């Protein structure tokens, strides 16, 4: 007589779990080592982008409601303050524009390549999904491309790493995967600032004898042509020099307020145009944006001094 089997479940779920685990491992390995899965990621990213919009909805509604109930007097006060601020900034801008012009002319005198500053796009912030990444509300439809730098009014924030149709993912400068070439404002010492994975940055491979002090301001140097030059990156927080080690340990506090952001700017990297090739390089690309870009204007204008000096 055959033994009657009780309470034994025939289930293939265990094998299925094993298969899925192996599949997970394979995907993880492929996604870490190769860019093969990027198209799939972009498709999913675009498909679930409404979620980012919906999740930021309560905050947007809140802002709208607060705006709707702002008193008239308050609005007038804000408007006056903004007008004054705008006037002040306009005044400074005029000075900067003449300095940029002067700078370009001097560069042409030196026959060095001319730096063309990238265009700036204003974007809104959707979510900060992990502390070290954020999602912005424009994608390739809004002319955002991978590698562009992201700034706010106080300094450099990070760079665009993935772009969907209407959202993009930004790696913050505090992320370990991110490095920014910087220079000290005081004495132009160059270094590389790497994110520490928390809320600051570290200067890598700076010799103990280098002149970097606590309180030094760091600006992006534009080397590597990923980040535009001249934007504040951070302030040196502490310098630890251990004579037994070849490199100093330097901690940097980021300038940008990474924890309270609403609107940010996406900047294209600086381009370098060789003065000799400038008529070819600048003309086709610069044509549509002549009015907005003083640097490009300076490029297209013939520099009168050059001829005079060569005589």
């Amino acid at each position, binding site marked *: 007589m055959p033994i009657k089997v009780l309470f034994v479940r025939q*289930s293939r*779920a*265990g094998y*299925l*779990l094993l298969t*899925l*685990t192996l*599949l*997970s*491992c*394979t*995907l*993880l390995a492929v*996604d*870490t080592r190769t860019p093969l*899965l990027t198209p*799939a*990621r972009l498709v*999913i*990213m675009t498909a*679930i982008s409404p*979620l*980012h919009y*919906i*999740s*930021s909805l*309560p*905050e947007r509604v809140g802002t709208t409601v607060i705006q709707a109930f702002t008193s008239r007097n308050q609005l007038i006060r804000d408007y006056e303050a903004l007008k004054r601020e705008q006037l002040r900034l306009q005044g400074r801008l005029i000075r900067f524009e003449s300095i940029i012009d002067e700078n370009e002319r001097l560069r042409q005198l030196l026959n060095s390549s001319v730096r063309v500053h990238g265009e700036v796009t204003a974007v809104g912030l959707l*979510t*900060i*999904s*992990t*502390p070290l*990444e954020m*999602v912005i509300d424009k994608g390739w439809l809004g002319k955002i491309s991978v590698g562009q730098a992201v700034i706010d009014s106080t300094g450099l924030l990070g760079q665009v790493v*993935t772009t969907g149709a209407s959202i993009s*993912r930004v790696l913050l400068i505090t992320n*370990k*995967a991110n490095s920014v070439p910087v220079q000290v404002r005081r004495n132009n010492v160059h270094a590389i600032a790497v994110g520490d*994975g*928390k809320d600051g940055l570290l200067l890598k491979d700076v010799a103990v004898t280098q002149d970097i002090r606590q309180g030094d301001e760091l600006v992006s140097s534009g080397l590597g042509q990923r980040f535009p030059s001249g934007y504040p990156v951070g302030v040196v927080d502490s310098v630890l020099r251990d004579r037994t080690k070849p490199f100093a340990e330097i901690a940097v506090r980021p300038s940008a307020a990474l*924890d*309270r952001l609403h609107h940010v700017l996406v900047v294209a990297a600086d381009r370098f145009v060789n003065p000799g090739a400038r008529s070819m390089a600048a003309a086709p690309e610069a044509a549509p944006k002549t009015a907005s870009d003083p640097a490009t204007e300076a490029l297209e204008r013939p520099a009168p001094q050059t001829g005079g000096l060569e005589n």
Partner: protein
Amino acid sequence: MNPTRGGWLIPLTLIGAMLLTVAHLAAGVPAWLRPDWAVALFLFWTITAPGRTGLVWAWITGLLFDVLLGDRLGLHGFGFALTTFLGSRFQERLLMYSLLQQTAVAAVIAATVQAVNSLARALLVDADLSALALVSILTTMLAYPLLSVTLRPLANRFMRQ
């Protein structure tokens, strides 16, 4: 439970979990306080509505969470599939448990998933292994009874004949 009724409820709650996962936290609230809503949710549905959540679907949902959180593809799939597997393997037993006992099981599963995820992140993208991740286990554990109390009436209302 009627196997054909209320099939929309599970995807809907999963979308809710995704929203809660990326929702803005008030300024100053650290990210590690956020519970792993999806793990708690998968455990709840496998116990409450057996046969409705499969391993493969759980794994595919994991891909969505990977993209949502900017993780490497395949990271969350394992955790969700494991949760679904354990939930359905011990479904009869877990159904008989009190809410307190189920919460304890949720904590154990959340800890396992959190451990695997943290380790994978540390190995693959050089993320920090932080003890604060343990807090997320605690919040996930607290999220489970909350989900159970809110969703059980809904499940009874829409999934029964």
